[in-house]
């Protein structure tokens, strides 16, 4: 479907506006995103699911995406970061549409498959055992859960975080265990 601002929310399978979307349960919202196909990473068992990408929609600009092009503002992304995707939608915030989610899935796939992206192996990312990929020049990383192969999170580390990651092989402390 060709993107336009007037139909930006119509392609998630529920066919409607924010007003309808915000009344859905979290399971229905998750199911709506699950209708968008996953992207697989060539030569691995790793997959980039639409649901997890949507949950991390606020990291899109770290991968060069322009939220405005997809009907989202920086304010929407800040709200997703602050409130989580479900609450952002329940509060009436703009829904990250299929085009935005697919564009971010595509960027993550391109990133994971690129020859200059370093395979860091299994590392802890905010307490989860993940397969981590990192591009040293830009300090962008992407992680996949070790057990399921499902994409977890990815964004641009700041300089100190990147240096610490290079030194210790960990991203974020594990405060749960």
């Amino acid at each position: 479907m060709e993107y336009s601002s007037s139909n930006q929310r119509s392609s998630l399978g529920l066919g409607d506006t924010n007003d309808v979307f915000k009344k859905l349960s979290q399971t229905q919202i998750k199911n709506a995103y699950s209708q968008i196909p996953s992207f697989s990473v060539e030569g691995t068992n790793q997959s980039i699911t639409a649901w997890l990408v949507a949950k991390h929609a606020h990291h899109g600009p770290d991968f060069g995406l322009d939220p405005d092009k997809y009907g989202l503002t920086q304010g929407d992304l800040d709200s997703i970061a602050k409130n989580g995707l479900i609450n952002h939608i329940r509060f009436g915030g703009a829904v990250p549409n299929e085009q935005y989610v697919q564009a971010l899935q595509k960027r993550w796939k391109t990133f994971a498959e690129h020859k200059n992206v370093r395979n860091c192996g299994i590392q802890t990312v905010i307490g989860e055992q993940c397969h981590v990929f990192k591009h040293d020049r830009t300090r962008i990383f992407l992680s996949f859960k070790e057990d399921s192969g499902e994409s977890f999170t990815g964004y641009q580390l700041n300089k100190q975080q990147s240096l610490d990651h290079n030194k210790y092989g960990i991203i974020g402390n594990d405060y749960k265990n």
Partner: protein
Amino acid sequence: MQYNKRKHLKLLKSSQKSEKPRKILSDEEFLKLLESRPDENFFELEAYSAMMIAHLHWQNREQYFELIEQFLNGPINFLDLRKKYRSISDAVERLKAELILLDPVEPYNKAFGFTELINEIIMLFDRYCPDPRIREDYEFSEEELKNLIQKIFIGMKNRYP
């Protein structure tokens, strides 16, 4: 590693420019970005830059403390904290672009570790999930998050008066 202003300046003059963060890119431009590789001085330059940034964060610790106190005593809102962090980091990048360097030699030991703790707090918000029905194992409730930040904050105030 000790900060060496003369070496930092020399590296800045001779090395590749830093990539601008969060720049809008087409698919082709994104691919081109991934083609870029660190040159031989990249990691040393990054380390010096991180020291300069760390120094400036520490010098602004009072403002950070105020922001942390605000969300410990009120609704969860980490955006101001993240904005402050980015503003300071961006300010250092702008100074560097003009080859204006701060000299963090003497107070650097005092500042050591401060930025890491601010980073920890910012990263914790990525694990905040207010809704228990959809909270993952690795995510925190508001109460858990505030308790953790309170602990970090008490340590920070003692260590960086």
